[in-house]
């Protein structure tokens, strides 16, 4: 059988067996509704609260500050839209960056359509937001600043503590999308001083369909869904119990393994980059290698197009992603690499590799072998080359 190598852990992760085992009883055995007063209901309630504690512990929050949602996207929408709209009397200006996830960007566009003004901060050539730039963008009208913790494409980790301080000095709320950061770098919401933070289970070996929004005690945010009073009346609807239990278990494992996870992924990623550099000419690493998610590597292979390379790798059993326009539904190249200042033709040739807990050195060796073969093949077909110039 063909070797299967998954190098897209930033897209999603497989559910770890311990997580799956923890979830299974809650499908048909311990199926009670957490809102029911009898024993099996209360057992579910207990499981729900245990999971909340574990998710809270992973980010240094109190369990009462954790509100489960259906996804990181829902958490982002809730945080941004509800906080902005409920503070519209104070001002209608929010600040974010050009490299946010679409869950954030499209929430901002929605607000713009409703009369809000949004400032999209640039990033520097390394992929970082300049705190001075944030400082200058703030006005008396600014009610919210939302800056992602770690970027999904280039993995750069923003100086959240410093940025949050600046926002709060001017009386604005600070939200961060930490979907990629969770389980990949240590997070302590108290030390960071953030008001709201979005997280998701399926990036940390938990199930899909479950996320959470951290809302710091003292921050008022209108309820998202109205109904039966679940999630402290903030987000009604019968809880996704199996998902929440899975999230809790994944958070527990993540907290326990964080140091070795970071160390192992960093080593694998660096080994991977070293091998690419020694075996393939004319490449470009996108984004800073310092202050970057441990498992992330974003590389441009010049003179070829990323979707073609992705397809050839797929035929070799290797799963990766690309910033090429050809791979996106909108046919536009990656907005993150564009903001980074990568020339458009080089964006088309970019691939994102993300290693994870199940990646081995043998996987990397095999991938590099296939990369060498496939990059050469496509360069032979290509109508552009070093000689012909870009």
């Amino acid at each position, binding site marked *: 059988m063909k070797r299967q190598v998954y190098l897209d852990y930033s897209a999603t992760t497989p559910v770890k067996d311990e997580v799956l085992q923890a979830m299974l009883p809650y499908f048909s055995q311990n199926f009670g509704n957490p809102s029911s007063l009898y024993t099996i209901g209360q057992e579910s309630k207990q499981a729900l609260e245990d999971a909340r504690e574990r998710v809270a512990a992973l980010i240094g929050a109190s369990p009462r500050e954790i509100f489960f949602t259906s996804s990181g996207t829902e958490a982002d929408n809730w945080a941004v839209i509800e906080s902005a709209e409920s503070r519209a009397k104070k001002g209608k200006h929010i600040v974010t960056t050009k490299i946010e996830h679409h869950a954030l960007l499209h929430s901002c566009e929605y607000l713009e359509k409703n009369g809000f003004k949004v400032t999209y901060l640039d990033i520097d050539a390394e992929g970082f937001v300049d705190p001075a730039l944030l400082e200058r963008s703030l006005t008396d009208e600014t009610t919210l600043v939302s800056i992602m913790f770690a970027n999904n494409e280039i993995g750069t980790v923003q100086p959240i503590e410093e940025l949050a301080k600046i926002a709060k000095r001017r009386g604005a709320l600070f939200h961060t999308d930490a979907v990629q950061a969770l389980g990949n770098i240590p997070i302590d919401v108290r030390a960071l001083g953030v008001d709201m933070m979005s997280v998701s289970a399926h990036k940390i070996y938990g199930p899909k369909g479950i996320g959470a929004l951290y809302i710091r005690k003292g921050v008022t945010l209108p309820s998202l869904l109205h109904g039966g009073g679940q999630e402290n009346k903030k987000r009604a609807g019968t809880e996704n119990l199996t998902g929440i239990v899975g999230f809790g278990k994944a958070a527990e494992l993540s907290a326990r393994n964080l140091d070795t996870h970071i160390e192992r992924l960093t080593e694998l990623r660096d080994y991977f980059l070293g091998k690419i550099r020694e075996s393939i000419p004319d490449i470009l690493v996108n984004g800073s290698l310092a202050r970057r998610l441990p498992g992330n590597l974003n590389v441009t292979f010049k003179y070829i*197009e990323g979707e073609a390379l992705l397809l050839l790798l797929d035929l070799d059993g290797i799963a990766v992603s690309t910033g090429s326009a050809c791979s996106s539904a909108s046919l536009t190249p990656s907005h993150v690499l564009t903001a980074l200042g990568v020339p458009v033709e080089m964006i088309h040739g970019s691939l994102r590799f993300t290693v994870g807990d199940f990646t081995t050195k043998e996987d990397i060796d095999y991938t590099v072998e296939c990369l060498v073969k496939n990059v050469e093949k496509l360069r032979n077909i290509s109508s552009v080359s070093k000689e012909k110039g870009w």
Partner: protein
Amino acid sequence: MATLYNDKVIKHFTDPHNVGEMQNPDGEGTYGSPVCGDMMKISIKVENGVIVDAKFKTFGCGSAIASSSVATDMIKGKTIEEALKITNQDVLDELGGLPAIKVHCSVLADHAIRAAIYDYAQRNGKYYAGLEGFDPNADEEDRNHGCDMENR
């Protein structure tokens, strides 16, 4: 197995026909741009009004490469007039279809063919009714065949 492309597209993509450049082509045309994400170059050899050989080089995605491969196959052995009749739809049909979002990649192929024949006509002072209204350097927007460079 669930895949984005059909077997024929994959076959032409992984093992494309007619890849290469010619020493002394009778006509040569390029279409698209690296900025747009795909650029195809076609070279042709013409004898007695018949395209006896065709080669291509393409910077582009899987379907652009597959389209280049079938398009060059299709024009070989055809007269110039016949080759000029090849449409985007013909290339698509020959490939057995592409995902809707990829259809623009086959537009690239029929335009590159026209650009190569245009060059041949220019060099030899020939006129072809099928080239009427075709100018490889005109209409930048059309050259981008839907390539949307709008970014925030």
